[in-house]
């Protein structure tokens, strides 16, 4: 008879433990051990059999489960899997995290559904699921409520834009204006992850401040459902093209099947993307995945003189202490904010905040 082993924490900084952990996962077909993936891991748990070999493992990165792998050779179907997932959930509960996601291979999706996870999107290569005290249904209900509070529902022509707005420029504003003109209601979803020069709260506030006159526009957080570390980590981390394509496909399908259908979104607006390779691929994938359910409209970038307006240029001007050069590129509200918080923003750049990414 097998003695059931307790779940324990694995110290991946120990080279011997790391090597065994990696070999175990590789034997199960998990092969991405790039530094940028590994750096995100907060805690790794594992179970050993009586001979001291690893038989199950799982990790958490924020509220995302990663590197879950289980060898079922000597166990009742699924029992080690359930032990590991249970231990990871209890670990997160101690940290006050009750809403979690997993990004996994198609063959494991059913196992996660058996322990209460709800599928958000899938491709041939992977599935995103979530579980916990809140979920996508609560999110779309909250978003719809904001539109209802502004007397904008029901609407038959509904537009949507997803933006990081780091910070909100006249380029963003132009895109919103186009959408506002062509629709009864426009949702602007602001990227939620707080990894940009302008914080999530600042970006959200500046988008709101810069669009107050557009009465049919609703500005909300994209939460973890749009361009987030969960759906689209490559937006924030350097990644190979095939991985970007795969992640953006999941992000696009999640938008199409969970967000657009529930909020009756008919058109998604994109800014043309001449500079960022990642965003360029994302735009292509959205154009493949969203129609016919959601029409995709690509709006050419707004220009100022000969220059295309980009938030990257605005951030560079901040870094170079040359704010006046971008005065005509941003709404007055964004400009005032940058003037008032110049030292704070420049200090963030000094401390190493990357201004050339997204």
């Amino acid at each position, binding site marked *: 008879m097998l003695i059931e082993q307790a779940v324990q924490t694995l110290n991946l900084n120990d080279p011997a433990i790391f090597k065994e952990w990696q070999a175990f996962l590789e034997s199960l077909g998990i092969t991405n051990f790039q530094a940028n993936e590994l750096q995100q891991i907060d805690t790794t748990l594992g179970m050993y059999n009586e001979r001291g070999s690893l038989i199950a493992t799982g990790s958490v990165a924020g509220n995302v489960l990663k590197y879950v792998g289980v060898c079922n050779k000597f166990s*009742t179907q699924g*029992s080690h899997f*359930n*032990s590991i*997932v*249970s*231990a990871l*959930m*209890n670990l997160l*509960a101690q940290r006050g995290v*009750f809403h979690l996601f997993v990004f996994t291979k198609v063959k494991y999706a059913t196992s996660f559904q*058996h*322990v*209460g996870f709800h599928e958000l999107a899938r491709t041939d290569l992977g599935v995103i699921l979530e*579980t*916990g*005290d*809140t979920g996508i249904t609560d999110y779309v209900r909250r978003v719809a409520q904001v539109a209802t509070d502004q007397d904008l529902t029901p609407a038959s022509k509904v537009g949507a834009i997803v933006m990081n707005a780091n910070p909100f420029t006249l380029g963003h504003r132009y895109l919103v204006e186009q959408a506002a003109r062509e629709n009864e209601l426009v949702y602007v979803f602001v990227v939620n992850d707080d990894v940009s020069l302008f914080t999530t709260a600042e970006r959200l506030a500046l988008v709101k401040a810069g669009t107050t006159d557009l009465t049919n526009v609703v500005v909300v957080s994209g939460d973890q459902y749009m361009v987030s570390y969960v759906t689209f980590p490559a937006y924030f981390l350097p990644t190979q093209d095939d991985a970007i394509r795969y992640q953006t496909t999941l992000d696009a399908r999640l938008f199409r099947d969970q967000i657009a259908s529930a909020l009756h979104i008919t058109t998604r607006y994109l800014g043309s993307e001449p500079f960022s390779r990642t965003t360029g691929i994302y735009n292509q994938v959205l154009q493949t995945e969203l129609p016919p359910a959601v029409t995709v409209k690509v709006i050419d970038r707004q220009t100022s003189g000969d220059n295309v307006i980009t938030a990257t240029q605005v951030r560079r001007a901040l870094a170079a202490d040359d704010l006046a050069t971008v005065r005509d590129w941003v709404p007055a509200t964004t400009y005032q904010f940058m003037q008032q918080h110049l030292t704070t923003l420049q200090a963030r750049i000094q401390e190493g905040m990357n201004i050339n990414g997204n």
Partner: protein
Amino acid sequence: MEIKKTAIAGTLESSDIQLMISQADSGIAIDLQSDVKKVFGDQIEAVITTTLNEMGVTAAKVKAVDKGALDCVIKARTIAAVQRAAETTATPAWEVL
């Protein structure tokens, strides 16, 4: 008893049930996942609801993942989750037990 925050009790091991209790505006809503839901779903939900009523919980959202737990286990896990969610673990409601 008022649910003040989300709390979890139990595990996903065989013969156990994992219960997550969180705030709700009114009423008790149970989302149950169980391989034996067809046969025992109503019974499991009844045990959870009765236990919540006995503890004076009138508004709560419950997510339950059952792995074949007996009624006494379901009751114990419900009590534990409520006490954590209501922040009353230091003063257990013995009369419910």
